[in-house]
């Protein structure tokens, strides 16, 4: 039956095959509702869609909590906890298994301007089950398909002020699957480096691209070279949009129909959340039936903003912001050191959090507590 339907769909598809994909770096992870793992490989410049056959539906409604994730993984990597570096986290919405991309490079994390992908390429995938069991996920002999990112930023280009870091580590900075489409934010080799790539899934050979331009309130300038760090698709005023956050920390909206069809797209800056900070992750959730966005940061607190506020915001930030913040307001939440965020189940958002002891814990944040 499925074979017949795919014949009807037509078009040139890249077929899935069983084998071992040649993944050079596990830069970003995300899942589709069907439990397919999408893996962004910045170094190789590819997006992989992998069927890990992890589709047993889970009825786990509690929170998952692990006190010291780095220690659990350290032994498997032949080292001690202070060397274990978690790069990204994604939760399979069907099995509720948590997937972590990991490397051994944490000892290199010496600056508040570093992000994990700056330090090394993640080369191991670890799974944490809902009962807290850790195991390696070997990406060998799997059913997968892939598509190449057209013209990612050149492997030789060096970061202007992060000495020793190549821009290539940010070829893919965030990745979302939404309703049959993959959105990839990152850096291209075009004159305007900040880009968004759009591909249908199942993959066809063509990937559309747009370069992006935004006004950065804290810097008082238009920017085209810094990549999106975290984004979400959302409908604003009945139109499909992308809400995206950047380093230092503007919040910008883009009209989705322009992305991929227009070569260069200008975003609308709706907020400045404060300078000296990386937005790390964004997740959409419901509290008392209403939508909110929870965002984690490298130097600012955990924060909540209301997409309805983004929708009703009438201006646009186009001049240098006086003071630290501007535009759409956010509400801070207690919880410093929160890094990765993922929707876990009806009640909880799963997060990694650096605790006062220095340990990295997997914590479950109750959605009912996250009301601004």
């Amino acid at each position, binding site marked *: 039956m499925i074979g017949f339907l795919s014949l009807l769909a037509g078009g040139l598809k890249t077929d899935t095959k069983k084998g071992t994909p040649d993944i050079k770096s596990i830069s970003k992870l995300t899942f589709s509702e069907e439990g397919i793992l999408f893996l962004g490989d910045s170094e190789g410049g590819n997006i992989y869609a992998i069927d890990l056959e992890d589709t047993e539906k889970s009825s786990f409604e509690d929170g998952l909590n692990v006190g010291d994730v780095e220690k659990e993984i350290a*032994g498997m990597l032949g080292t*001690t906890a202070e060397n274990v570096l978690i790069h990204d986290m994604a939760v399979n919405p069907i099995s509720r298994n948590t997937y972590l991309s990991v490397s051994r490079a944490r000892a290199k994390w010496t600056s508040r301007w570093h992000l994990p992908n700056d330090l090394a390429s993640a080369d191991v995938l670890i799974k944490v089950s809902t009962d807290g069991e850790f195991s390696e996920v070997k990406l060998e002999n799997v059913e997968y398909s892939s598509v190449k990112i057209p013209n990612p930023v050149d492997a030789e280009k060096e970061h202007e002020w992060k000495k020793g870091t190549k821009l290539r580590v940010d070829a893919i900075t965030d990745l979302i699957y939404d309703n049959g489409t993959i959105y990839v934010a990152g850096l291209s080799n075009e004159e305007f480096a900040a880009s968004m790539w759009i591909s249908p899934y199942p993959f066809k050979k063509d990937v559309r691209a747009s370069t992006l331009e935004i006004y950065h309130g804290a810097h008082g300038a238009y920017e085209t070279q810094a990549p999106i760090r975290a984004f979400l698709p959302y409908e604003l005023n009945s139109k499909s949009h992308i809400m995206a956050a950047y380093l230092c920390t503007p919040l910008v909206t883009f009209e989705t129909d322009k992305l991929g069809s227009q070569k260069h797209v200008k975003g609308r800056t709706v907020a400045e959340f404060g300078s000296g900070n990386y937005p790390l992750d964004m997740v959409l959730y419901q509290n008392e039936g209403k939508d909110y966005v929870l965002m984690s940061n490298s130097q600012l607190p955990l924060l909540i903003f209301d997409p309805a506020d983004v929708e009703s915001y009438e201006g646009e930030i186009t001049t240098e912001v006086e003071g630290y913040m501007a535009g759409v307001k956010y509400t801070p939440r207690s919880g410093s050191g929160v890094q990765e965020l993922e929707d876990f189940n009806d009640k909880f958002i799963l997060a990694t959090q650096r605790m006062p002891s220095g340990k990295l814990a997997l914590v479950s944040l109750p959605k009912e507590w996250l009301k601004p």
Partner: protein
Amino acid sequence: MYLLCFFAFVTSSSAQELNFSVEKDLKSERYGQISIEGINEQTIDMLLQKDLSDKQWSSFFEVRVIGASRAMLGSYEVIAGKPSFRPRFVPDQNVSYEIAFSSQSLRTLAPTHHDSREYVWTVSFDELNEGRNEIVEISPKEDLLPANILRLYVHFSNPVNFDNPHKYIRIERRNGELVKEPFVEMEEGLWSTDRRRLTLLIHPGRIKRNVGPNMTMGEVFEAGKSYKLVVSSEWNLEEDYVKSFQITAAVRSTIDVESWKVLSPKEGTVENLRIRTDKLLDKALSERLLSILDEEGNIVPGQFVYRSEESNLTFTPEQPWLDGNYVINIDPKLEDVCGNTPLTVFDVEGEGLKEKNRDLRIQFKSSK
């Protein structure tokens, strides 16, 4: 076998004790293997026949960080008649490991195993290489280098261990005085993937005119003066390695591809194409960023080699040259030793910039 220290804890002692051995495989991406010695042939045959899963292997043979709750990731194989574990990662020098082998558990899978002891060997992996390392050369090999040289490469004969290279490398003036902080210092070093080539990056902030470090600390090298690059013998070398050189004027001009001279190879032979370049090029980039295309636009397979002492780049084709036209394609990212490219001068915005769409191609025809 190589240098490591271990203790063996054995529950009882009599003849035919098992032992372990470690073999490093420098060429493989995986570290090497840890093998168990003394298992009889019938047992090995049984293990091979059963085609054990990782879970079954680890039921009797595991390597773990002491105190860790889980064993090290890796793969199991029978290598040269011995059960062997190949760790997924290079062992950490600062960590103690234990190799756990249970003869009892092995017997439940292979009753022909003669032994019933439990073994726990404590191991730490000291050095990545046995014996001394050697510096093959420091490039560019020239004795005369421009004041704004950007990179130097140190080539070792064997892969080098995880240590901060800047503890062992210094630049001295003629009078022995140290040049302060000439390099961009990265604790983990800038290494080639086989860990045999170290890139030393002269601090670009000091080379670039009118930027902070250049104005406060000054340039690293002064034209007309002599210097020594010293790699200390403390870095597992027989003796200090010294490269003496003299500095000439800074080179702030683009690579002039149009001035390159090409000596065409003879058709029907695999003789070298020789290109005489105009300045001292970066060896690694010049060997990687040029390609030869035939009349149909296909890439001609072969190897580029840059010999700075002869100012030339040679290309040796894999197949004989055909009678016809060829094109040498030069990537605009090609750099000379100062970071200048065919289109830009290293530290200059706008000044001396050539149009981006310039064609960096040289045509030639094979000679008769």
